[in-house]
């Protein structure tokens, strides 16, 4: 090997070794979150703050200091401590929070949602709305004193569906049936059902809806659920649980299912397995009264028996405790 090549190779080799020795400590320090304070010539630990917002492009202020970066941004070399982070963007409400930056760690403020200042808010209905219900098929139903109306989701294309004008005051809830053909509404004392297309007409734009008051109760109604077949509703009052059979134009049948020992504190209907869960008291094995969680299985097998019972028209049949 020629002497010139030896010299060139030696220069290249020592240059690369020096480069490695010089860069490695800096690279590892940076990666691990260490910095040098050039005033005191001391190494200190730093933390990283990552700020991301939706929408992006928001200005960041860190403890009163406006940063050049906009979101999403990675703010490095922060001394550990508490920082007040403000994220601002024109047309949106600002976001601010105090965050803790820890040494050698990354603090993430990456779930910031900036809500727009509501310049687009507008009234989409006429006045005198008693209540409304929104169907899964993309319509708004208005309960008004002049009848039942329907519009698209933006309030356009209003059509009258029923002349029914008497709606209970103090509605607690509205629930669409699983088949989407009707919805129920209820107050503390009454339950009504709106049949959106009782004749199963193809022309759904016609004024075809029928509204029926299906149940009134002297006991306060807590909740009402649809049974999956959409032909029955389950009414829970603070005294008992009842099943109401629906039928357009006929008087609804009612069957009591369960009588509470005490006012129920919590009721939940699980549509997945057709079961009603509730808390009730009973006397346990130790002769003391206590709260228990009950499950009322309302699967088809159970309901077939119930339907038979309803067909016998025995509304005063005894309570069945499960």
């Amino acid at each position, binding site marked *: 090997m020629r002497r010139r*090549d030896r010299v060139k190779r030696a220069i290249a080799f020592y240059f690369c070794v020096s480069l490695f020795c010089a*860069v*490695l400590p800096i*690279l590892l320090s940076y990666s691990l979150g260490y910095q040098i304070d050039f005033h005191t010539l001391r190494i200190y630990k730093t933390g990283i703050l990552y700020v991301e917002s939706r929408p992006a492009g928001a200005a960041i202020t860190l403890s009163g200091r406006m940063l050049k970066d906009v979101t999403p941004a990675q703010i490095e070399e922060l001394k550990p401590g508490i920082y007040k982070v403000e994220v601002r963007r024109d047309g949106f409400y600002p976001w601010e929070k105090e965050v803790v930056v820890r040494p050698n760690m990354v603090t993430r403020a990456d779930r910031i949602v900036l809500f727009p200042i509501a310049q687009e808010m507008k009234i989409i209905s006429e006045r005198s709305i008693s209540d409304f219900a929104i169907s899964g098929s993309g319509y708004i139903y208005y309960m008004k004193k002049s009848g039942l109306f329907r519009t698209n989701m933006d309030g356009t294309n209003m059509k009258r569906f029923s002349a029914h004008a008497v709606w209970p005051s103090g509605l607690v809830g509205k629930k669409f049936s699983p088949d989407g053909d009707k919805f129920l509404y209820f107050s503390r004392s009454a339950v009504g059902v709106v049949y959106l297309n009782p004749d199963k007409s193809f022309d759904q734009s016609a004024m075809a809806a029928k509204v029926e008051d299906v149940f009134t109760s002297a006991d306060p109604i807590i909740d009402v659920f649809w049974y999956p077949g959409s032909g029955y509703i389950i009414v829970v009052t603070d005294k008992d649980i009842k099943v109401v059979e629906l039928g357009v134009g006929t008087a609804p049948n009612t069957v009591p299912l369960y009588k509470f020992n005490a006012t129920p504190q919590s009721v939940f209907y699980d549509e997945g397995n057709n079961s009603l869960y509730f808390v009730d008291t009973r006397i346990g094995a130790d002769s003391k009264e206590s709260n228990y969680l009950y499950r009322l299985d309302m699967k088809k097998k159970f309901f077939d028996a119930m339907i038979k019972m309803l067909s016998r028209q025995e509304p005063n049949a005894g309570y069945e405790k499960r």
Partner: protein
Amino acid sequence: MRDMRRDRFYTRLFEIIPGFLTWTTIAGLFILAFIKPLWVAIFVITFDLYWVIRMTYLSMLMLFAYRRLARESKEDWLKKCESLSDGHGLRHNDIYHAVLFPSYREGLDILEPSIEALEGANYPKDTMIVIMSVEERAGPEAWANAVKVKKAHERHFWQFIITRHPDGLPGEMKVKGANATWGAKVLKEFLDAKKIDYERVIISCFDADTCADREYFGCLTYHYLTNPDRTRSSYQPIPVYNNNIWHARTVARILELGSSFMQMIETMRWEKFVTFSSHSMSFKTLFAVGYWPVDMISDDSAIYWKCFLHFNGRYTVVPMYVTVSMDVATERKILPTVVKQYKQKRRWAWGVENFPYVAVGFMHNNRIPLFTKIRRSLNILESHYTWAVWAIIVTFIAPLPLIFGGGLFRQTAIGYNLPSVSAVLFNMSLFTAFICMFISLKLLPPRPDDVKPQKRLVMYTQWLLAPFVVALLGSTPAIDAQTRLMLGKYMHFYVTEKKRHRTPNS
């Protein structure tokens, strides 16, 4: 008997070491990524930086080597030989060149261009002896090809010898070294009959597809004459794979160009330079060491180590900045090309068999300084170890701390910085791809008429695929070879089939 048992024990021990180191590294890093992701992350960053700087260093060496190649390949070496004074003991017209082609089933499309390249050499052909040693097991067709080539070309050379290497000679494996040794023994008989001094004969052992540069023999003669230790040196040209490069698949081109570049770099690292593929040496030396090993796959490097041990460490490889051109191992379709490349690279990686051979050889040789023994052993071990692990670390181990480290690790500064730091280092290493692109274009032969002009664009952009090729074939053949050696499942010689395909536009 006891010595043989002891040798066998140490040979097995040294066979196990490379594979053991490789698997310990890979498995260790994999396990640590679960239990100590921070340690692995620090290791990955350190290794990435080391690799970038190593690539930088090797690129510089490659540029130095390329500049010498560009300059020296233009020399009229024959004129330089003629202008040499008589003070070197021998003159150029005292020298005979024996060119040995151990062949198997290569067709005329492979053999003819190799012989034609000899005819085109800027060197007197009346001092050249061509020996074509054909494997008997290759069948009558291979022999018929050799006869045809001899008939067509023998008039251009002083002698053209064809011989059949019998199959299954005692002590031999089915390896190229056995065939080459057979051809060398036939040459010895010829030289003895002509009473030619072995020192006056330079033997070049070429693969069947090797096309020597027209200045090869002039350059070789010049270095041989001017080398005071001419019989204690091998002479190594720079192998390029230009014969079919325009028709080869991209994946094969990248890998073979990578091999050429590594050889160029090795010429600048003389202290670890070892013969590779086609090379030349004094016939006197070859005879003294008992020819090529007949039971080792890596005969090209093994002959160097045989000489190194024989001459007690006083043996070197002289780099020659002229090229010999060979075929890219390729196929018409991509998948068979990948398989072919994999097998060829695995055969090259089987050069790790030199480690036990050399280490045990060192144990028996007290004349080689201990420092030299340690340095050279570690050179072999390090090169094969690095070959087996680097691509695995860069491509597969690097992301593991983030995958297995869990949310807590990702919340740390290093867990957060690891992807960006790795990406920056990776991008920095890409500049070596530009150097590779530049040199590969400089080495590229003229475009054949049957190749479309737009193929040149592929030659520019092919390096973008290098990271994927490296991930696929960078380390896996070496791991395969080392694992086989570790487990004692010895490889047989895989003959890379050479055919000139016309792949339209890969």
